[in-house]
């Protein structure tokens, strides 16, 4: 379990690298970890960007079971109370997802190839 700050740095580095990659160089993009938190029945950030190969780390800070359920059926991750669950992204797309148990919790994850 690494401190949250570490992931933010890694995520920032990942974004920086992806910026370089779009310039046409062959620099291999390192997989990043993107942290998304479910707290007080809200998903933050409500819109996040990631790339195929990145890991999403959903942190459930609530006392309730939540889920991260893709509307297109790509994934359905159950998040027990006060637990963190990781998912490696395998497919690109702009995915709207929600909590199956609390459908008011909605967010979007934009996954670039």
């Amino acid at each position, binding site marked *: 379990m690494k401190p949250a700050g570490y992931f933010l740095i890694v995520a920032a580095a990942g974004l920086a690298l992806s910026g370089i990659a779009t310039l046409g160089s062959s620099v291999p993009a390192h997989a990043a970890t993107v942290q998304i938190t479910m707290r007080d*029945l809200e998903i933050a950030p409500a819109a996040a960007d990631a790339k195929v190969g990145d890991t999403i780390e959903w942190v459930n800070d609530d*006392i*309730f079971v939540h889920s991260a359920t893709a509307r297109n059926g790509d994934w359905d991750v159950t998040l027990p109370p006060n637990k963190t669950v990781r998912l490696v992204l395998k497919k690109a797309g702009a995915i709207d997802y929600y909590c199956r148990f609390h459908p008011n919790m909605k967010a979007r994850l934009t996954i670039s190839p």
Partner: protein
Amino acid sequence: MLVRLSAAIAAAALLSSGALAQDAKPTDPQIAHIAYTAGVIDVTAAKQALDKSKNKDVKAFAADMVRDHEAVNKKALALVKKLKVTPEDNDTSRTLSKNAAAKLKELSALKGAAFDKAYVDNEVAYHKAVDGALETLLIPSAGNAELKSLLQTGLKIFQGHEQHAEHLAAELK
């Protein structure tokens, strides 16, 4: 009509029964007892629905109720223990329990679609009443910050339940 009537009864039970209506605001030990009792009532109703209903959506809703209300009550128990508060029985809790027992009995006589409709309608009414009581009475009266915060979390999740129940009630029509 039925919904409105039960909502009125439930609201009356919460807001204008016994000591709470006339006297000053409820104390923290009373608030803890009322909130916990309200949760237990909904879990019991949900378990009856899980037992009796054949409708997939109704069962899924009931399972959500068990899971969420048990989570809140577990947290509430841990909190009162931490704060060394003993929940105190009171007229509101007693009226709630009495009405809930009557409703449970009434629903036990129903079957199939009639049961589903009565259960879901009552869930709409019940959550409306509980949310109203949380908003106007219990949260404003709570003295302890952690208790207030838990009640606020409860309100947020129960408002979601109310919407879910309303949605389900519309589908069952």
